[in-house]
């Protein structure tokens, strides 16, 4: 049969194999963490690893169904899927809370979290909307509509509350950035009111999303430095605050740029360039000062929380318990690890690291396999993410490309935040590590996410 031959030959094997490697490592880690001597079989369905196998089996079965559905169909079912998920997200708000959040539909181990599937539905609908636009994805109306598609499920998830998934929804901003999202209409609307200035586009407007994240980073640096007293010889009082330091640094960079202005711009561009540098300095400096002020204006417990996340304060047995235990587990793995099933800090029975089979599953993995395992894991994720972007860029159909970017950015966010909180780089917000963490909904949703992509890619030639 021609169809079956083509399925195997058209499957993107690099992506599929990296996916299978992660699934396998994940299952092995769940087995190690949750191992129960009384039920050593990996198919012991009363144990977590047995349940994980069931969910993986279900995922692959659904994957098979996905491969039987024609690729065209996914853009068509996007809206109905999106609406049904919204309905589920509303229903779930009326369920009894588990661990303080109304996130679960159904009971016990058969429960599902609609929020996990909301990511797929949103990815599909966003892809459909942007790909079917006749105008550029740059008008205010189109951008607002796209934002609305994100905002409705995000709001419902925020009500559960589930901060982690909410954060993951911001990953779609990068997808929109790739599809041409620009903030020029707003920025130009302000800038061009200044007499003598007539810009057609700005660099800031074009790259607003990445710049936004760089700015967030700047804010964090300011906060980290805000508690530090600088000593500078020659100053009257000799000391100044950290935020002042950031402003001074930005100021010196601007001055340097102005001094070398001949080198970086032509004579014609010079007035504009000076203006850009001056504005850039003013904006960054005021953000920096604002963050500093805003921070000291925060309530004490909020400030504590931020200080803990940024590592400005130590409280290893109190507010920083989870992160401290997780880092101890990861760090104690050493170069080669403690050996499979050898985790002592993050084993489930010792319970030092909470949720070591779900959100903190990187702990037992890194503790047992050490730096060697960790670097293999990071490299596999890197390979997978870059492969998905490669796949995205080779699509003819915009729907496929946008969807592939959605997959890449969702996985990237989960990877970055989850690993980040295990190594002290990110605040502890509970989101699973894709293909690793124990849990039916997350395994199922990540597998489906990837299977749909594989299916779309396998039929990329068919698209006109």
């Amino acid at each position, binding site marked *: 049969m021609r169809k079956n031959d083509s399925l195997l030959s058209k499957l993107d094997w690099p992506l599929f194999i990296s996916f299978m490697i992660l699934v396998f490592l994940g299952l092995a880690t769940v087995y190690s963490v949750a191992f129960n001597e009384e039920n050593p079989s990996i198919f012991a369905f009363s144990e977590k690893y047995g349940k994980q196998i069931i969910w993986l089996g279900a995922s692959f079965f659904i994957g098979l169904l996905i491969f039987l559905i024609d690729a065209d169909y996914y853009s068509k079912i996007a809206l109905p899927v999106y609406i049904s998920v919204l309905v589920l997200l509303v229903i779930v708000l009326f369920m009894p809370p588990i661990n303080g959040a109304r996130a679960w539909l159904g009971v016990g181990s058969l429960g599902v979290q609609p929020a996990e599937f909301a990511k797929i539905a949103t990815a599909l609908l966003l892809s459909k909307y942007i790909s079917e636009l006749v105008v550029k994805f740059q008008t205010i109306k189109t951008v607002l509509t796209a934002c609305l598609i994100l905002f409705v499920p995000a709001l419902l998830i925020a009500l559960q509350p589930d901060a982690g998934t909410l954060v993951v929804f911001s990953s779609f901003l990068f997808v929109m*950035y790739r599809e041409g999202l620009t903030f020029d209409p707003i920025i130009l609307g302000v800038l061009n009111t200044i007499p003598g200035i007539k810009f057609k586009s700005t660099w800031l407007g074009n790259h607003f999303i990445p710049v936004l994240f760089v700015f967030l980073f700047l804010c964090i640096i300011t906060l980290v430095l805000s508690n530090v007293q600088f000593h500078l010889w020659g100053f009257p009082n000799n000391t100044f605050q950290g935020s002042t330091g950031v402003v001074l640094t930005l100021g010196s960079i601007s001055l340097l740029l102005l001094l070398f202005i001949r080198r970086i711009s032509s004579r014609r561009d010079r007035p504009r360039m000076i203006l850009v540098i001056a504005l850039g300095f003013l904006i960054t400096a005021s953000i920096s000062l604002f963050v500093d002020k805003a921070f000291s204006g925060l309530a004490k417990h909020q400030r504590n929380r931020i200080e803990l996340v940024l590592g400005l304060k130590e409280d290893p047995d109190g507010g920083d318990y989870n992160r401290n235990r997780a880092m101890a587990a990861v760090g*104690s793995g050493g170069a080669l690890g403690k050996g499979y099933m050898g985790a002592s800090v993050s084993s489930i029975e010792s*319970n030092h690291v909470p949720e070591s089979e779900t959100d903190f599953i990187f702990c037992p993995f890194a503790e047992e396999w050490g730096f060697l395992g960790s670097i293999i894991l990071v490299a596999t994720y890197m390979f997978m993410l870059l492969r998905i972007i490669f796949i995205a860029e080779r699509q003819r159909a915009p729907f496929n490309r946008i969807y592939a970017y959605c997959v890449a950015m969702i996985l990237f966010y989960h990877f970055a935040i989850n690993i980040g909180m295990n190594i002290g780089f990110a605040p502890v917000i509970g989101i699973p590590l894709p293909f690793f963490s124990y849990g039916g909904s997350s395994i199922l949703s990540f597998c489906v996410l990837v299977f749909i992509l594989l299916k779309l890619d396998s039929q990329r030639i068919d698209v006109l």
Partner: protein
Amino acid sequence: MNIANRKYIIVLFILVIGVLYSLRLFYMQVIDDTWVLRAQEIAEKRKEVLPPRAVIFDRNGLKIVSNKTYYNLMFIENNIPKLDTVAFAKLINWTPIQVRERFAEIKEGEGVYRNKSSGKKTPNYQKKRAYPFLKELSLEEITNIALHLDNFPGFYEEVTSMRSYPFSNGANILGYLNEATRKEIDEDRFYRPGSNIGRSGIERFYEKELRGRKGIRYVVTSAMNNPIESYANGKYDTIAKQAPGLKLGMDITLQAYGELLMQNKKGCIVAIEPESGDILAMISAPSFDPNLLVGRRNISLNYPKLVTDINKPLFPRPLQAEYPPGSIFKLVQSLIALQEGVITEETGFPCNKSVVGCHNHPNASGVAQAVQYSCNPYFYAVVRKIIQQRKSKNTFTDAEKGLNLWHSYMNSFGLGKKLETDVSGQRPGLIPDSKYYDRIYGRHQWAFSTIRSISIGQGEIKLTPLQMANIAAIIANKGWYIEPHFVKSIGDSGPLPIYQKKNYTMVEAKNFSAVIEGMRRVVNEPGGTGSAARLKDIMVCGKTGTVQNSQGEDHSVFIAFAPMENPKIALAIFVENAGAGGTWAAPIASLIIEKYLLSKISDSDKEKRIIEATLSNFNKP
């Protein structure tokens, strides 16, 4: 800019995170070992396992100090769902208020953490940690409670080991244990809060030999602090090792008999085997049952009673009481004079009662007779000859030289200094030298006539009963002694080197025969002051002493050794405020000698009289 190029920015983001995380992981896992230490702190607990303390045996291999199992009733607050205080109080025979107070006490007391460097105390009570609710319960006590513990989840029993004294004798000598003080814990890492440490006597002196080696188990513990498994399959664990038993030279039967004889009296008995320096018995009267000071509960109950008892049972008299020796001191004076050649065995002095009082007896025509009659004027003359040897023309400088010479003789007899006995809390006694009198009278302001009362063992002279017994041992050995000691052997190692060395006095063996003859006469000849010590089958040599003192009636003293040929026991008996040495101390000595050498008592009337006597200075409760 072409929109498609934006993919590079996104790829850059992903790569930056990937590289950043890889570097961070490399730093955390390979370079920095902070987290390895942190993980050990969190999950790998050192559990210390204390071995039972070493057992102590007497010279015949009888167990005199052993260990007994006790139980602590522990609790972990987190594991107590809801405590029925009334039912629980009923189970342990307390009132509910007491139960609540005990919980409060634990939280404020035992839960307090003290910072070693700053000394600051902070409350550190942790609900997940185990604390003892009741300590040191006996088997019967815990059995009654344990039967119903199922109704009180969160409580469980824990086994501990404490001292036990099967013979209830020798309390002052064996010593007792109590909880290590903060200072001791800081100085020696062996101890933890609540650890026991030898507080007095042999328990204290041999603390390091008795405590054994701690075992250390490395276990992986859970966040609830429960052990889960042994770390690395026990590769790094060490096993707790009980120290080898201590074998004492003490004869516990003799010790018990001595305590029986001394009941209702104040004073002491010290018996030494002259040849080896083994202390056979050391009785401090009154004594107490050492089991009274076992464990915190007993100590807090009984210690205040013992410490306030006006008979001072806690005072280890043989080691710490410094008494004037009285006439027994004349033996040493004779030996020094003979060695110095200021007299010969045949030198006689008249009993001139105008110099010092004496009782009626014939004039002594030699050293042996002088000892037999215990003639005071005779020894005035003898000691004058020692102190004033006319080596210097000035009487005062002559006395200074003479006294210092005499002082070094005394030191060679182990007097005026602490003996190297293996027990803590000894006193040195007092043998004055020239500096001592210079401080009182001024330099060159005194001569023999000023200090003459030292001749008959009165005045400034102070000896401990242990030193007195050692004099008897020296005479029995004709000139040497081995430092008196309790421990014959640690395990099978034999006596310590220090207890194998003969210490020679400055008096040669040939000068002892006259004094020994005198001591034989004291006991065995008519007119001897110690006839009450006479035994039919054993030749006892002894010397009585009757010590005047300001506290009332004279102290009764007797030192002796037996048998005369090849002596096996040397001893000192001191009975406070009992009267003449021949009346009380001498008969006690004979009973001890007979008991030790023959294991039977020939004169049961003598024994009965001694046992039943209650001396007037003894305060019966």
